[in-house]
């Protein structure tokens, strides 16, 4: 994966200007992310029950667990797309809604606009009111990071699955959010595409963005995680550093999951 030139020399165009939206919150660190007794019900059914955690500012936090464990819902709660039924969630000293301006989320099936590849990136720049003069440079940098430079004018929805995912991540990261939330970023991708997407996630994290992602794929969690939150059946069973979690999981269910057992 090519390193983003602009990022490499440290002067990202996004840092040179002030954006109305970001200006309000940019002096507030988003991390740690703290949850206390977080609950989420839908039609009386519990989807998340009584979860508490503390996520620090460094590294890539992976929310691991089988399908239906509540990973996606937890991620959406953190991004403020849905609101908790009970409990508390805050990003640093900001509310979830305030913090969203400094975050980006890539859902499992990213919504690509019915526009060109470059148009998809340009859209977010215009929404965030980036001055016109700076847009082209940012678009070029984002597409280079995604390895999509020569597909810039292609309609985004005609890209392959891996390319679409890379575009979605590049688009999300174009303004260097403080936090990037990814929901199952490599589901349905072939191994080569998985590697490209993972390298991209790593590069984004190395450039200073906090990564918070979900996966049900244990090898992927091993490759990417610096700390793991193990979620099963709507509860957080363990939260530990990657080394600790994979070498000596404390929770018996986590140990069985790591052994390849299918948890119901």
């Amino acid at each position, binding site marked *: 994966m090519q390193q983003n030139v602009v990022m490499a020399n440290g002067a990202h165009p996004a840092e040179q200007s002030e954006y109305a*939206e970001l200006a309000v919150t940019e002096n507030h660190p988003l991390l740690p992310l703290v949850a206390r007794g977080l609950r989420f019900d839908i039609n009386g059914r519990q989807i998340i029950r009584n979860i508490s955690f503390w996520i620090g500012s460094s590294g890539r936090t992976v929310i691991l667990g089988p399908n239906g464990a509540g990973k996606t819902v937890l991620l959406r709660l953190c*991004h403020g*797309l849905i609101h908790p039924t009970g409990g508390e969630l805050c990003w640093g000293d900001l509310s979830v809604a305030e913090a*969203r*301006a400094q975050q*980006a*989320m890539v*859902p499992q099936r*990213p*919504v690509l*606009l*019915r*526009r060109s590849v470059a148009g998809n990136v340009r*859209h*977010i720049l*215009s*929404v*965030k009111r980036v001055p016109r003069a700076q847009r082209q440079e940012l678009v070029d940098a984002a597409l280079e990071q995604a390895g999509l430079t020569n597909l810039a004018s292609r*309609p985004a*929805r*005609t890209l392959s699955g891996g390319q679409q995912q890379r575009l979605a991540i590049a688009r999300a990261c174009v303004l260097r959010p403080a936090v990037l939330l990814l929901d199952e970023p490599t589901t349905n991708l072939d191994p080569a595409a998985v590697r490209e997407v993972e390298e991209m996630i790593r590069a984004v994290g190395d450039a200073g963005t906090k990564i918070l992602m979900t996966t049900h794929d244990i090898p992927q969690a091993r490759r990417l995680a610096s700390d793991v939150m193990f979620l099963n059946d709507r509860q957080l069973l363990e939260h530990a550093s990657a080394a600790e979690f994979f070498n000596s999981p404390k929770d018996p269910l986590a140990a069985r999951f790591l052994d390849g057992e299918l948890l119901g």
Partner: protein
Amino acid sequence: MNEASSAIGAALSMIVTLDPGLVEIVLLSLRISLSAVVIASIIALPLGALIALQPFPGRRGVVVLLNAMMGLPPVVVGLMVYLLLSRAGPLGPMGLLFTPTAMIIAQSIIVFPIIAALSRQTIADLHEEYDEHLRSIGCTPLQSVVTLLRDGRYRLLTGIMAGFGRAIAEVGAVLIVGGNIQHSTRVMTTTIALETSKGNLALALGLGLILVMLALGVNGTALVISDAAKRRYG
């Protein structure tokens, strides 16, 4: 039989030689219907989007009403506009009755619900798909509307063309509010009605042919555009 075939011959020659009387009528028809579609679109597109995006009490009722109004009989619209614009009517002093402006007003009213209903449907579908993304990146309501209108542009264009097809083909409203005055408010459909009853089949047939070709052309183009957009943008 003989009369019909000679009329067809005369009609074709009028079209080929661009008979001035025929061209005048065709151009007026296009001017009136295109103006009506543009005016209706300017109001109906954002309004359709607003109804799609902004929940309010009675929204379902408005949607049902809008859909039902797509089948508004042009004669009735003509009658309503006639009553509004006639000497004794509330807008009588403006002296618009039996002018092209009156015809544009009537056709705008006929076309409006078609474009508004299709715009609402398009934007509602697209919004369902885009909503989370737009919220995630912090779109203001106005930015959302602009994004949705832009990404729905091909489907919206199809709706607009359907509206134009209806406007150019209707006869009841323009006849009542325009009066079918030669060199002033005579359009294709009203001329066909008049010339047929006078027995002047050549002009009627010539205009009929052009009208059919326009209708086919508009619908064909709409189909091609939406097909191409589907292939290209999904």
